């Protein structure tokens, strides 16, 4: 019990937009924190511009601010709300950094705001390498040695002190450029000499290459009770960022003494640092002895803690909040078992495997090699009772077309290189190596992966060998069972036996090979637990739970976060589940993403942490026999399963899956539009280059091409000439009858409009029409979206609404759907239609304060709800949704927008007018108001003219203008002075690159034009440099104009909470 000093009003900082390294896990941790506060009757104020999160939904925090997480805005909100305390641990690095800043500037002290949980001094000790190193060594523990060197001699001295081999790291280098291990003095001298040609300082570090990487999650209360919740072992050893590593929990290849030694060390250090709440500690462990190094401590909830929480079932974020409030660990109930205490260390009787999801093919010029910088955009977690089982399940969960560890159509030519220089595909290279007869020792030498994991992988290959050449009906029960226990899917087995997935399913069921359901109960069945957290395994005979409950509905989740599908679909799923709960249905959630709120212990009645595949959904459907399945909330994965499940006899709720095919099949949909007399951009499916050229000539360039299925990284593209068309089609591999490409007319200078809507039996029930700031050509996921539209003609709006109604009727829609339009001069054309919730559903729901998902769910369940008042769609304020890019993290990638989506997240803010909402949103994605100078290279003559007014405004704001030669000339002609900087490749001073390096520029506006390569390369270098130097970059003319307009109009951004907009 807390007898005194319990907070009354707590401010929580969120983490903002999802980006690489900081993703959905903070929606999970923030949501749990809010629940924990609520349970204690404490008022919560949340600042988070990530509108698609669950934590920013109604019924969570008492007040929500969709505002930038920056010290100045936080201070405004503190002044207004007068909270007595603040929580910094639940919003990732963003919240932590802002918290430290507020503390150091004395703002917290000034307003009497107490930091709950880990004190700021302790946070600082974990963030500063030097202080941290001292803290570790002063209690006799070991940290990796690291020394700085400013010249070659210092480097030699440092290396000799540390002892060869050493890791040479170049401070502030691009993508670890020039970093590497040197084994002796000569190698070091050579490397250091080269390094000092482009840097002033290098780091000499003890080489831990090939050491095991181990993590523990530790919690501590203010009474000094300190326990470890979960141990995790990275399968990829030291050298690959843990966010990019395959990770298993609990540790698998450590002896008990090693395991408990690391545990003790961790506890000792955490007590010494004074953490209160939750933290994560990383170690390197020598594979040849029990020697270790402490790598780092994260004194906050992290990606690893979200994983640990889902892997063990222990609600880490919830408990951490209670501890921060002042509770003792043994005063908090174990919410999972509801029988035992929270002060215990979970015992697992299964293993959990995390696999990262990369989307590197979405970026131009990015390296696929993995290293010390995280590149993955999401992750999955699989549960099972053998390594083979969890590995194959996890690979399928990624939804990247891989069937499992084996059975994929991938061939590596330089296998040794693939193994020793890890990329996002290394696991498949290991499979190939095993098949080609590489010894375990050799693979170990090349990968440094602990042999035990490789032995287990080999088991999968051995089972595959046993299955080869055996007809389906000749597979014995024992072999079928072995295959299933080693994680083979029906698809993989069908592939080997020459049978369909469904035939394999029927056969194995006929011989009695079906999975069993097991519970995650945190204590290995030692006590009975009322847990609803479930997984399926073939390593078992008995189901843990009884089936046969009535009134159950399955909701399919959205799987791994990836570019194009992330927290917004989790919001939809969670809202669907909560709406079903209100209607008194029993809900079953299926999802496999540990970063989500939908997989939290208290969201649904039953959670299956499982694969979103036809096979597994059907396995669960067979056992649970629900009333129906909702497939329209989780984005594309469940949507793609709809028809297959429907054909297998599954009851799909909402719009009929037959209609999904009508909307997704280009030919069928086109015919429907023709019938409705709705316009669409001209398109054709083509199988030869000549045809393509002919079509392009007919409709005139530019045209948009998309391959029917993505191969070798070829993606959608806009082409402007025959030459480009030819080049593109060559890259897109063989164009043929089996693999046609779709070419459509690309309409320039057009506006894109989206309609998010819900219908009931074909009648439009509610809708939201929003417009893009960027002209057509920018992927809708990367576009800046405004609601309600500010520049769209009334006539266009009317037309959009009518078409939306017509399509709803034609496709007999019941539930959520989204239509994308293109509009030019009051002509409206339909680009595409999705019969599911879209990415912008949370945005429109929260701006209009109408929960579209709740309505959709009710309508799908046949509930009758009263019509909404028309005025509900008309609001007096504006919402702007802006994309968040992670280009900084993806070294080398070209930070430019195109028809392929590249953003990893989004924010949305509200404002009294368009400019205010726009500026808040942009500041929320990391833009800063320029104070010094702007670098202009504003594209074509047309663009330059278009931007002239805004250039004047920048000039009038007193900003120094730098420009490229052409732009500068143009400006001079129009009476604006600017200083000319030379192109990067000219290598002449004054050069743009130098000025960026020296921090003389704080905004780059670079509007690319499609011209010769030299200029394109120059443009790329400017953009890349800007991103690497963390200088704001704008590459789209409409965004640039709006940004400048907003800057010139807005003096002060108001701190208004969500409920103040009405």
């Amino acid at each position, binding site marked *: 019990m807390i007898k005194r000093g319990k907070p009354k009003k707590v401010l929580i900082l969120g983490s903002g937009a999802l980006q690489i390294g900081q993703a959905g896990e903070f929606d999970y941790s923030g949501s749990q924190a809010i629940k924990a506060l609520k349970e204690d009757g404490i008022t919560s104020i949340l600042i988070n511009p990530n509108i698609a999160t669950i934590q920013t939904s109604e019924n969570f925090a008492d007040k929500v601010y969709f505002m930038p997480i920056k010290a100045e805005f936080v201070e405004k909100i503190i002044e207004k709300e007068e909270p007595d305390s603040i929580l910094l641990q639940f919003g990732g690095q963003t919240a932590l950094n802002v918290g430290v800043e507020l503390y150091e500037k004395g703002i917290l002290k000034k307003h009497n705001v107490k930091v709950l949980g880990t004190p700021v001094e302790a946070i600082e000790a974990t963030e500063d390498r030097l202080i941290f190193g001292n803290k570790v060594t002063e209690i006799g523990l070991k940290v990796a040695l690291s020394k700085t060197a400013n010249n070659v001699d210092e480097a030699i001295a440092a290396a000799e002190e540390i002892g060869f081999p050493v890791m040479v790291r170049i401070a502030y280098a691009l993508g670890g450029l020039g970093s590497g291990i040197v084994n002796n003095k000569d190698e070091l001298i050579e490397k250091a000499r080269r390094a000092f040609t482009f840097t002033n300082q290098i780091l000499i570090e003890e080489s831990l290459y090939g050491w095991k990487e181990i993590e523990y999650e530790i919690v501590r209360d203010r009474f000094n009770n300190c326990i470890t919740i979960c141990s995790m072992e990275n399968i990829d050893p030291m050298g690959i960022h843990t966010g990019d590593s395959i990770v298993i929990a609990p540790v698998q290849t450590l002896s008990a003494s090693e395991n408990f030694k690391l545990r003790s060390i961790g506890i000792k250090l955490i007590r010494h640092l004074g953490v209160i709440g939750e933290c994560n500690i990383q170690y390197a462990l020598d594979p040849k002895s029990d020697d270790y190094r402490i790598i780092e401590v994260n004194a906050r909830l992290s990606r690893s803690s979200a994983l640990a929480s889902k892997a063990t079932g222990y609600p880490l974020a919830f408990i951490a909040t209670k501890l921060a409030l002042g509770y003792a660990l043994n005063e908090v109930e174990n919410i999972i078992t509801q029988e035992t205490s929270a002060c215990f260390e979970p015992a697992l009787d299964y293993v959990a495997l995390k696999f990262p999801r990369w989307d590197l093919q979405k970026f131009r010029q990015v390296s696929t090699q993995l290293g010390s910088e995280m590149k993955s955009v999401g992750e999955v977690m699989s549960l099972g009772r053998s390594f083979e089982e969890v590995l194959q399940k996890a690979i399928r969960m990624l939804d990247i077309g891989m069937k499992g560890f084996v059975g994929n159509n991938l061939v590596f030519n330089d296998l040794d290189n693939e193994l020793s220089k890890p990329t996002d595909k290394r696991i498949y290279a290991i499979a190939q190596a095993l098949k080609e007869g590489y010894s375990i020792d050799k693979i170990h030498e090349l990968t440094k992966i602990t042999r035990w994991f490789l032995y287990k992988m080999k088991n999968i290959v051995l089972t595959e060998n046993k299955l080869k050449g055996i007809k389906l009906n000749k597979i014995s029960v024992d072999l079928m069972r072995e295959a299933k226990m080693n994680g083979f899917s029906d698809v993989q087995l069908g592939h080997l036996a020459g049978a369909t997935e469904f035939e394999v399913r029927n056969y194995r069921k006929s011989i009695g090979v079906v999975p069993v359901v097991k519970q995650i109960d945190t204590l290995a069945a030692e006590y009975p637990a009322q847990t609803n957290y479930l997984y399926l395994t073939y390593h078992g*005979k008995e189901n843990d739970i009884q089936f046969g409950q009535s009134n159950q509905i399955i909701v399919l989740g959205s799987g791994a976060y990836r570019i194009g599908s992330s927290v917004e679909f989790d919001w939809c799923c969670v809202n669907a589940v909560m709406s079903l709960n209100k209607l008194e249905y029993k809900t079953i959630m299926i999802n496999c993403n540990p970063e989500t709120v939908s997989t939290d212990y208290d969201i649904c009645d039953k959670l299956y942490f499982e694969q979103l595949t036809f096979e597994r959904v059907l396995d669960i459907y067979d056992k649970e026999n629900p009333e129906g399945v909702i497939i329209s909330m989780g984005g594309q994965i469940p949507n793609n399963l709809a028809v297959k499940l429907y054909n297998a006899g599954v009851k799909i709720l909402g719009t009929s899956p037959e209609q999904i095919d009508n909307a997704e099949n280009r030919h069928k949909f086109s015919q429907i539009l023709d019938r409705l007399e709705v316009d669409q951009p001209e398109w054709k499916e083509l199988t030869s280059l000549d045809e393509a050229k002919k079509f392009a000539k007919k409709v005139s360039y530019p045209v948009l091409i998309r391959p029917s299925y993505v191969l070798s990284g070829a993606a959608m593209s806009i082409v402007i000439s025959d030459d480009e068309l030819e080049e593109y089609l060559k890259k897109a591999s063989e164009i043929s009858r089996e693999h046609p490409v779709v070419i459509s007319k690309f309409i320039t200078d057009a506006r894109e409009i989206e309609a998010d809507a819900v219908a009931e039996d074909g009648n439009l029930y509610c809708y939201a029409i929003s417009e893009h700031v960027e002209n057509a050509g920018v992927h809708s996921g990367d576009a800046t979206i405004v609601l309600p539209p500010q520049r769209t003609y009334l006539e266009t709006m009317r037309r959009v609404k009518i078409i939306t109604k017509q399509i709803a009727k034609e496709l007999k829609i019941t539930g959520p759907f989204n239509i994308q339009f293109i509009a030019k001069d009051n002509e409206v054309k339909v680009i595409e239609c999705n019969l599911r919730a879209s990415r912008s559903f949370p945005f429109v729901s929260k701006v209009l304060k109408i929960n579209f998902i709740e309505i959709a769910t009710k309508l799908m369940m046949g509930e009758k709800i009263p019509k909404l008042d028309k005025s509900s769609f008309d609001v007096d304020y504006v919402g702007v949704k802006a994309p968040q890019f992670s280009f900084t993290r993806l070294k080398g990638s070209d930070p430019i927008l195109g028809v392929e989506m590249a953003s990893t997240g989004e924010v949305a803010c509200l404002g009294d007018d368009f400019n205010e909402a726009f500026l808040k949103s942009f500041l929320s994605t990391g833009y800063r108001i320029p104070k010094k100078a702007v670098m202009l290279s504003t594209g074509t003559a047309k663009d330059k003219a278009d931007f002239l007014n805004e250039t004047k405004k920048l000039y009038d704001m007193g900003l120094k203008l730098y420009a490229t030669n052409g732009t500068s000339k143009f400006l001079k002609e129009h009476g604006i002075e600017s200083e000319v900087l030379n192109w990067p490749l000219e290598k002449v001073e004054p050069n743009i690159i130098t000025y960026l390096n020296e921090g003389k520029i704080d905004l780059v506006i670079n509007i690319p034009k499609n011209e010769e390569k030299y200029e394109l390369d120059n443009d790329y270098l400017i953009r890349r440099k800007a991103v690497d130097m963390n200088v704001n970059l704008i590459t789209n003319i409409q965004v640039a104009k709006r940004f400048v307009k907003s800057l010139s109009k807005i003096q002060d951004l108001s701190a208004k909470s969500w409920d103040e907009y009405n």
Partner: protein
Amino acid sequence: MNNKPQKAKLILEDGTEFVGTAFGYPINTNGEVVFNTGMVGYPETMTDPSYRGQILVMTFPLIGNYGVPNYERENGLLKYFESEKIHCRALIISNYSDEYSHWNGKRSLDDWMKEQKIPGIYGIDTRMLTRKLRESGTMLGKIVIDEKEKIDFEDVNKLDLVGEVCVKEPIEYTRNKKKIILVDCGTKNNIIQAFLRRNITVIRVPYDYDFSKEKANGILISNGPGDPKMCKATIENTRKVMKFGTPTLGVCLGSQIMALAAGADTYKLKYGHRGHNQPCNETGSKRCYITSQNHGYAVNSETMPEDWREWFINDNDGTNEGIIHIAKPFFATQFHPEASPGPDDTEFIFDMFLRALK
């Protein structure tokens, strides 16, 4: 490993059968079936003498991963094991790794069990088995690998298990002048090592040895297998030394023996505590420790004499986890301060004992 997988059965006294594949030494056996929830530490656990007579079920499914360590000795004791040999009668697991990897792995678990003539079964739904034991309580069981050879159930708690596992003659591990008598009821090596590390001379005596006449600064009554009431001589001798006021520490079975000597009662738990994650609250404080445990019996705290207090209480089920005398240097824990395997959070109890030594 055998080339040909051989079927093996675990039969419980209620008739339930679990079928899996044999590994280790192919022999029929019997014992009391218990489960352990620790996720690591099979070499230490299997050599813990407290498992004498028991068929051990591991709830963690992946076993054998890091093999079995070398037979290096320290102070004459095996460094990586808790005694000279495997004490459980059989091992039941879900998923066995014959191919292991660890710098200190010298043989596979299968080879080690063959060498020690201990049978095992893998491929068992150990969660189902654990749930069964949890619901019905600990049961007798038997392992049948050779169907032709008959084997019966055996109630091992009626055997002199402690007599089987303890040292036969006193052994002295010489260090400093300060010495303790370790009453070996089946001690784990790490209890001895913990005191040698602290430079204390340890005289290890058999459980029925009359240590009441020995000169020592303190007495430690060790852990061990089975029902404490079987250790009549130890209880009697403990009662004597407590009369002299000699500092006495009990660990696990030792705690139960001290309770019995003090006049309290003990009882059999439904399925015991075996694992590395048992939370124990220290009474009168907000401190809670994570402890390593392995016991089937417990002290009935309601029967404690007036001058004794409950020291620790299990935060999960409220059972007694330690007792302490209000005035004299007598204290005991149900859990294992020496850990191995398990968390070392409570090793401070050995230091407390040192400070109490006369």
